[in-house]
């Protein structure tokens, strides 16, 4: 299970709309336990694949190092990543699978259709090594309580 607050879920999807028709990408910081991956913060990242940003993404390793350092400072871990599929289904592609190396992490994909975020799915990269890794469909639990409370506070 991927547990995420609504504001983070919404921010991921908005990121995909902002970068349309290009793919967006980012990192999920949080904690993992037997119940799944719990997202506490999302971090936007730059897509370095400017040569083919409509169908590819890549996060610069130097940026990942900084994000991992940021997570450590916050007492959090990298528990997943997100990216968008402009005008393409929210399902992992052969490239997504070949380039997935963070076993135990969640890979969230949002389909963005004509500039609007559509379906968002999460896939858990399971296995023990490169040789037996696989993507599993991962249920997503969106916590709206905090968001609703904040909205009520504005009224």
């Amino acid at each position, binding site marked *: 299970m991927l547990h995420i607050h609504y504001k983070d879920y919404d921010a991921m999807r908005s990121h995909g709309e902002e970068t349309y028709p290009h*793919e967006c990408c980012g990192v999920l910081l949080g904690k*993992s336990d037997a119940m799944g991956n719990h997202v506490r913060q999302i971090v936007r990242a730059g897509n370095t694949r400017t040569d083919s940003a409509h*169908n590819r993404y890549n996060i610069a390793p*130097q940026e990942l190092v900084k994000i991992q350092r940021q997570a450590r400072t916050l007492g959090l871990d*990298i528990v997943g990543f997100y*990216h968008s599929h402009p005008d393409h289904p929210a399902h992992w592609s052969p490239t997504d699978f070949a380039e997935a*190396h963070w076993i135990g992490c969640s890979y969230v994909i949002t389909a963005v259709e004509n500039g609007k975020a559509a379906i968002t799915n999460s896939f858990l990269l399971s296995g023990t090594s490169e040789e037996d890794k696989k993507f599993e469909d991962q249920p997503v639990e969106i916590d709206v309580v905090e968001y609703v409370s904040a909205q009520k506070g504005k009224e």
Partner: protein
Amino acid sequence: MNIHIPTPLRSFTSGAETVAVPGSTVAEVFTNLTSQYPALQQQLFNSDGKLRSFVNVYVNDEDLRYLPEKESTSVAANDELTIIPSIAGGSNRVLPCCSCCSLL
């Protein structure tokens, strides 16, 4: 020196996110790291003993690939080494070559 372990490899370091390993060069540090945690060998290196292509290694803020001496680079006890697997992908969607294609 301290080595920062990424989330997916912590199951091979008993959950430790940072491990202290002795060594005067990056190669020595890696030898000592995989002696201490043997299961990391297969995760980090291919059968030729080379770092797997998706494994990035940073000595402080420098990418090991671009350091002149590569694995022979000298390190001090207060240096930090970060192991960070790459993250990439994409839909592979093929753009239509003309307006007619998008109608097919």
